[in-house]
C-alpha cells in the first residue's frame, strides 16, 4: 500500500529536471526547535494541581460540615442547659421562694410603711415594729 502511495505522490521526472535547471535543489526538512516535553509537563501539572485542589477543598468542606454539625448539636445542648439553669434561677428568685426562705429564718413582712428623708433626717410616717403572726405567716404552695 505504501509503495503505491509513494508512487502516486512521487514527482514527475521531467519536473525534477526543470527544477534543477532553474537552480532549485532539494533540502532537508527543517526540524522544529520547540521540544514537546515541557508543554506536556505544564499541562499535566496544571491538571493535577486543579484535581488535587478540588479534592482538598471538598475534603476540607466536608470536614467543616461535620464540625458544623457537631458544633450545632453542642450549641443546642448548651442552649437546653442554659434554659434549665435559667428556669432554676427563676424558681429560686420568685417572690414565693424568697418569702418562704425569709419566713423560715423568722422574718416578718412589715405592713407599717415609714420613710427616712435623707435631706433632713426626718422620719415620714409612723414606724412600728412588725409583729410576728400579724401578717403573712405561710406560703401556700
Amino acid at each position: 500500500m505504501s509503495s503505491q502511495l509513494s508512487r502516486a505522490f512521487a514527482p514527475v521526472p521531467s519536473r525534477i529536471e526543470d527544477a534543477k535547471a532553474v537552480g532549485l535543489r532539494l533540502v532537508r526538512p527543517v526540524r522544529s526547535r520547540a521540544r514537546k516535553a515541557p508543554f506536556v509537563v505544564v499541562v499535566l501539572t496544571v491538571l493535577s494541581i486543579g484535581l488535587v485542589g478540588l479534592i482538598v477543598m471538598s475534603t476540607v468542606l466536608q470536614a467543616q460540615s461535620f464540625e458544623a454539625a457537631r458544633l450545632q448539636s453542642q450549641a443546642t445542648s448548651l442552649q437546653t442547659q442554659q434554659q434549665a439553669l435559667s428556669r432554676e434561677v427563676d424558681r429560686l428568685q420568685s417572690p414565693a421562694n424568697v418569702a418562704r426562705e425569709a419566713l423560715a429564718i423568722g422574718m416578718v413582712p412589715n405592713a407599717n410603711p415609714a420613710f427616712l428623708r435623707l435631706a433632713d433626717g426626718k422620719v415620714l410616717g409612723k414606724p412600728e415594729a412588725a409583729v410576728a403572726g400579724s401578717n403573712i405567716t405561710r406560703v401556700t404552695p
Partner: protein
Amino acid sequence: MNAAQVLTRRRLRACLVIILVVFALFGARLFQIQGLDASAYAAQAVASGTQKKVDPAPRGAILDRNGEELATSVDGLTLTADPKMTVDNAPQIARILREKLGNEIDYFDTIDKLRTPDSRYVYLAKDLPKWTADKAIAALDKAGLPGVFSEKETLRTYPGGKLAANLLGYTNGAGKGVAGLEQQFDKTLTGTDGSSTYEVSPTGQRIPMADSTVTEMVPGRDVQTTIDRDLQWYADQRLADAVQASSSDWGLAITMDVKTCQIVQMSQAPTFNADERSGMDDSNTVSRAVQNVYEPGSVMKTVTMAALADQGKIAADTPIVVPPKMTIDRFPIGDYWQHGTLKLTAAGVIALSSNLGTIVAAQQMSDQTMYQYFSKFGFGQKTGVNLPGESKGILTNGSEWTKANHATISFGQGVSVTAMQMMRAVGAIANAGKMCEPSVVTSTVDKDGTKTAVTSPASKRIVSKDAASTVTRMMEAVTAPDGTAPAAAIKGYRVAGKTGTAWRVDPTTGRYIRGQNTVSFMGFAPADNPRFLTYIVLDKPYSNAGGGSTAAPVFHDIMSMALERFGVAPSGSKSPKVAQTW
C-alpha cells in the same frame, strides 16, 4: 444455498428482530423519562436528598412592669413510644423513665402504655422540659432499649406558678392563648415559624455549597404589663389567707394607680396553677375581676354622693334626718343596726354606712339624673381594660326605674357591676373627678427591645374637683376610729375608704338569699394626694362577716405594701375633723 444455510439466516433474522424490539422498548422508556417526565423525576431526585426543617418561632414572654418574666416559653419534648418495639422491655423502660422524669409519669400506667396491643404509637408524656426529656432519652440509649421517641414542641411556663394566673390566662395544647392576656394578645405573642431547606448526605450531614433556602422565623413579641410582681405575690397570698380564714367562696384584690389607671396588682382566690396545670376548673380559671357580676352594696354610696356633690346638693356637713326605717313600694328597708330617728351629716351617713340616710339624700335627684350620673361613672358599660370575656354589668335605664329601684340603686343593690367597673368609678373620685380607663398592658416589645406603646383613651372629667374632694372627706371618716372600718387606717397616712356588705342574689331564682353576703372594702391613699386605689371583695364569707371587719384588714396590708414598694411617703397632714351628727 443449502437447507442449513437457510435455517441459519432465519435464526439470525429472528434474533435481529428481538434485539430491535428490545432496543425500541429501551428507547421509548428513555424518551419517557428524559423527554416527558423529566422535571418530575428531577424534583424527586432532589427531594430524596433534601431536608426541610421547620424553625418554630418562640412565643413572646409576658413581663411585669420591671421586666421580670411572668410567662415565658422554653423548648419542650413529647415522649412517644412504639409498643411493638417496647412490649418486651416495658418494665425496664418504665423504670428508667420514672427515675429520670419523676412525677411526670406513673410507673404502672407507663408499663400498660408500653404494652398497648395492636398499636404502634402511644403518648407517654407531654409538655416535658427538653433538659429533663433529653436525660431520659440518653439513659434509654445507653441501656440499649429502643422504641421510645421524642417530638419537639414549645412549652409555656409560668415561673411564678399561681402568680397573677387569672390575669395571665393560659394556653391550650396547641400553644394558643385561650384565657386572659394569653388570649387577648395571642396574635402579638405568636411569632411566625421559619423554615430551612437544604441538601443532606445519606448520613444526615448538610452538603456544603449545595442549594439551600432559609426563611427566617420571626419570634413573637413580648407583652409588658403594668403588674408589679412582688406586690402581686404579696396580695395573692394575703387574699388567699383571708378567703380561707373567712371561708369565702372566692375573693378579689385589685390595686390601681389612680393617676394613670394602671393596674399594679390583680389577685383572685382560689386560683389555678397554669405551670403545673393544676386546679384548672372553670370556677378557678374565670377572671372574676372582669367576668363576674355582683351587687356591690354600700361602696356604691360614694358614687351617689359624688353625683349629689357635683350638683351642689350635698356637702360633708349637710344635715340629714335619718328615719328608723322606710317602706318603699311595699319593700321594707332598714339599716344594718337598729336605731331611732338620727340626725346625721352626709359624712356621718357614709362613715356609718346608713342606707336610709343615702336614700334620703338621693331623693334630691330624679331617676334620669341619677341614671345619667351612673352611666357617666361607667356602669352598664365595659371598661377599657382590654381583657377577654368582660361583662358590662346590669344598670337598667332610668326611665324604667321604680321608686324602690331608685332607693336601692343609691346604696348599691339592684345594680350589678364588675369589680373593674367599680374600680374605674371610685378611681374617678380619687383622681379629683377625672375618670380614666384601667389598663394592664403598657407596651409590646420586639426581640431587639424596641417598645411599641399600647395607648389607652384619655381621661375625662365626670364630676367637679370640689365634688371629688367632698366625697373624699366623707370617705376619710370611714377609716376614723368611730367609722365602720378603722382597721383600714394606716398609721401616719390619710386613708379614704368605704365598706360594702351586699346581699347575694341567687343566680337561679334571682332573689336575695338571707344570710349570704358579698363583703368588700374600697379605699385609696394618701387621701390628700391619692396614689393607689385598692378594692377587696370577699364573696359569701361566714354569715356575720362585714366589710369593715373582714375586708378592711386585707386592704390595710395590701395598700401598705403598695405605698412602701412605690415609695409613697405620707405628707404628714391631718384629716380634717368632720362632724358625723348635728
